[in-house]
């Protein structure tokens, strides 16, 4: 069953288009990574799904309802980002008590255990926490509320490496204990890969890929071998990146447009290597001919 259904969704802020004709459907009970460069429109689409902003055109349905100003979707959804704020007058413990009051599936016991593990003082005020502690608390708040749709917008920002690894595990464990749809955006795809089922890649306001993780990784492949042997091959397919060093070429190409067998490649001295998900993201979203070195020349 589709939990989120976006059709021809566009959003513009003044004259700037943040999202352009986005159509996507997201299944229930999956962990989905929303990946994109800075300013690609990740947060905009999440804000629309959360019902905080209204799309300029198109429709977005969450649990088959329009999320904007809708109490039913709000009750089943939690949106965690670094803007999550609480009054200075509430200690962490007070916040947890209020959370328990609001969210029907709230796990108080778990919240206390997780905060204790992260070494957070329950009497502290939300604003007094450091950046990493704040992120930890917000993430715990998001997980223990056990909403059917949990949206985490860069939940790990500011956390140190050890706690990040721990909390990826925590997300996974919580997901197993109470399956729900989790949307995560992050710039650390490498770390996150192990818990993701699907990837939704956004670039310049439109979705350019939405596939299960394995399929996503196989979209591109890296070829390297003698330049003359590769030249023919590269002219037939789409090349995302290419470097030539001393007569040896290595290139990133689209797998779907490559119609040669591995044996043939091997006979020509060309080696195939697979890319990681974050490399695929990088190549798919990189600008034509972009090169940081060129700026300094």
């Amino acid at each position, binding site marked *: *069953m589709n939990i989120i259904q976006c059709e021809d969704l566009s959003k513009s*802020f003044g004259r700037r288009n943040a999202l352009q004709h986005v159509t996507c459907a997201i299944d*229930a*009970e999956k962990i989905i990574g929303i990946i994109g460069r800075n300013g690609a429109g990740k947060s905009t689409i999440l*804000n629309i799904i959360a*019902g*905080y*902003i*209204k799309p*300029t055109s198109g429709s977005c349905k969450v*649990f088959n309802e329009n999320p904007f*100003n*809708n*109490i*039913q979707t*709000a*009750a*089943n959804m939690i*949106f965690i980002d670094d*803007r*999550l*704020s*609480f*009054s*200075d*007058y*509430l200690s962490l413990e*007070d916040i947890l008590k*209020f*959370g328990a*009051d*609001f*969210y*029907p*599936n709230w796990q108080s016991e778990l919240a206390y255990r997780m905060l204790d593990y992260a070494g957070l003082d329950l009497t502290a005020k939300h604003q007094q926490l450091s950046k990493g502690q704040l992120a930890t608390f917000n993430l715990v*708040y998001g997980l223990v509320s056990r909403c*059917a749709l949990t949206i985490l917008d860069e939940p790990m920002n500011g956390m140190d490496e050890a706690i990040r690894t721990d909390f990826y595990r925590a997300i996974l464990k919580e997901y197993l204990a*109470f*399956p*729900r749809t989790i949307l995560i955006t992050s710039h650390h795809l490498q770390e996150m890969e192990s818990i993701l089922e699907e990837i939704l890649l956004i670039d310049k306001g439109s979705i350019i890929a939405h596939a299960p993780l394995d399929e996503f990784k196989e979209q591109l492949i890296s070829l390297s071998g003698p330049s003359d042997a590769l030249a023919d091959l590269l002219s037939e397919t789409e090349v995302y990146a290419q470097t030539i060093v001393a007569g040896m070429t290595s290139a990133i190409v689209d797998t779907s447009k490559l119609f040669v067998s591995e044996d043939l490649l091997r006979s020509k001295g060309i080696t195939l290597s697979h890319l990681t998900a974050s490399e695929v993201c990088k190549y798919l979203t990189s600008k034509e001919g972009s090169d940081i070195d060129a700026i300094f020349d």
Partner: protein
Amino acid sequence: MQSLTNISLKTIVKKQVKWKAKLYISALSSLVILQIIFGILLSSSGSTSGYGRGNLSVQFSIYSLDMFLIVSAFWAFIVAILFTTKAYRIDDLSVISSRTSSAIANIFVMIIYSFIAVVIMISTFYLKVLEILLVEKQSFIIENLFISPSIYYYVSVASVYLAQSAYYWALASRDRHLLKYQL
């Protein structure tokens, strides 16, 4: 597929009022401070007039709560502006809320705060009475407050609330046009 939770608007508004009433408590403490400041500034501001005929001389001072009411109304106006600022709206997003439920909850919180504000206001008057009795050792004739406290009370609550809503509704109607640019 787990079942979705169904919550009525009424329940959420009730919970939000509870949450907001606690969250915004600083607004009330600012009123107390404001009243104290004005209480000190206006401590000798009973309007005094005197008459004399022959050996008899009558002098009376009129103390009134009007100034405090004006201060409270002004405070209420400012608080209403504060409640609708972006920071407060973002606070609402931390719990289950929709724009409708937040707006309704704000209205209730303002009504509650208006009542509390008037209690604070009237208690300043009692302090004043105490001061006159004990420090200045004057006797006095008590008019409005003790004769018909309830009417005075409700008039005060109404005027404080009016001051709040004056801004709030103006803003709410403006927001309707700006909804798409909010946040």
